């Protein structure tokens, strides 16, 4: 199998995995899912580092360094903000009725 075809096979299989994995997401989690997926595509940082290390002239280097900055913002910011959201979704019991009911006549 040629390498181009191998890459396309990976792409097609990943489409199926992607749809399968996310298909039954509850609407409660739409925001974190989007934000988390957003962070995952920040992995373009890997590509940005590769092209930066191969840059031959200043135009290429400037563009690829800019790509690294943007990709880092995307990746790290994305994971941090998603974690902040999910922190609030931690399993919890009913709101503590006890501390409120005392005040009610």
């Amino acid at each position, binding site marked *: 199998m040629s390498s*181009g075809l191998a890459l396309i096979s*990976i792409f097609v299989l*990943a*489409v199926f*995995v*992607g*749809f399968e*994995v*996310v298909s039954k*997401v509850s*609407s*409660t*989690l739409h*925001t*974190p*899912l*989007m*934000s*988390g*997926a*957003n*962070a*995952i*595509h920040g*992995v*373009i*940082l*890997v*590509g*940005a*580092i590769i*092209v*930066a*290390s191969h*840059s*031959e002239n200043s135009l290429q280097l400037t*563009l690829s*360094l*800019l*790509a*690294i900055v*943007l990709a*880092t913002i*995307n*990746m*790290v*910011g*994305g*994971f941090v*903000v998603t*974690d*902040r*959201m999910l922190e609030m979704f931690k*399993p*919890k*019991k009913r*709101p503590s009725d006890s501390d*409120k009911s005392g*005040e*009610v006549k």
Partner: protein
Amino acid sequence: MSRDLYDLIGLVAAACFILALKGLSHPKTARRGNLIGAAGATIATLVVFFYGDQLPLKNLPLILGAIVLGLVIGVPAARKVQLTQMPQLVALFNGVGGGAAALVAIVEYLKLGEEAAEKGGAIGAAILIATIFTVVVGTTSFTGSIVTFLKLQELMTTRPVIFPGGRFVIAGNLVAILLCSGWVYAAADTTSVLVLMGLSALFGILFVLPVGGADVPIVISLLNAFTGLTVAASGYVLEATLLIVAGTLVGASGTILTRLMAEAMGRSLFGTLFGAFTATATAAGATDTRPVKSGSAEDVAILLNYARRVVIVPGFGLAVAQAQHTVRELADLLTAKGIDVAYGIHPVAGRMPGHMNVLLAEANVPYDQLVEMDEINPTFPQTDVSIVIGANDVVNPAAKTTPGCPIYGMPILDVQQSGNIIFLKRSMRPGFAGIENELLYDPKTTLLFGDAKASLTKVVGALKSL
């Protein structure tokens, strides 16, 4: 490090991403899922520094410097942002990701072009097509996300921006992109690709401008899918399987979310994106002078005190006022009085999919009290009081009764079927979509004007003293 080891580690990172998305689908596993994803991304990034033709990598100090700069910008932004501003931050992060992918493709393309010129060969057709795709879609995603950010941050109008002949300008822009893609394909030089980038940047702007505020959640998830696909395409150009897998996963999840959003709005994706061009400017701004019934916090408290079932319908106004904690206080108080309380969550309430769930989770509202639209709607006839807090379009019956209005066909929360309706509003101004709400004039409706948090605090106070 051998190529095999490098690829193997890439495979591990790809598996992490799959597990991350899988985890993010369920509330219990979501946080762990996100951390697994972060771990995968960290491994993938670190391993690049140990694999290459020459080590240490060329330009290493500059690369590290750029990463540090990215960290310095990204981490504080993510840490400090308020939950109400989450949607625009996500839009912005998405945009910079798309921009990064476009830049990576351009640099790789320039390098391949030089190599081809030296050796007298040509760049492969598939590589060229993938590059063109990445540049067009990545740049579109970048500028489109910036415009979305400006709209959400209200640095520009949230209404659809429609100008005469807009449809033809967009069509012309698309044709120009196609022609220019042909030029890039044939010429394979620097000028052509930079022109293509400029045209795509313009397209991103033109494409998001006419999208009305209520449709912004759809656009965010669509642009997210776009960026994912561009990352996958740059993975093809760079022959990096990890990028292909990660980008495709994101593309798939973005597509699913976009479809879910569009369904929740009761319209086709095409209609959302291009609806604004055909919609005639509806009677926005037509001031209505009909009387409305406005009440005091005490009136509202009395109404609530004698209810058996209360449904709270939150909207973006709740987020703006940071009233989520006060709402919970009110709900706790009502629950303690033996009143049945539920939250009716419209899928597109707020500014991004599931926005309300995040806000209420912050206020420690248990997620089993958050009831989705399809489940809560049949219960409205048995509901004594519905409290609509800073929401408008998602309860507007015009979506059912007025063909031709911008939200026509969108499923709504049927609060009009409940015994009483209380609207907490800042003013009579219509919602994000800019449509008059008939429900405000309904005899069953009581309006409580003012900042949602201040109003709720007063209601809580009044309820306690009853």
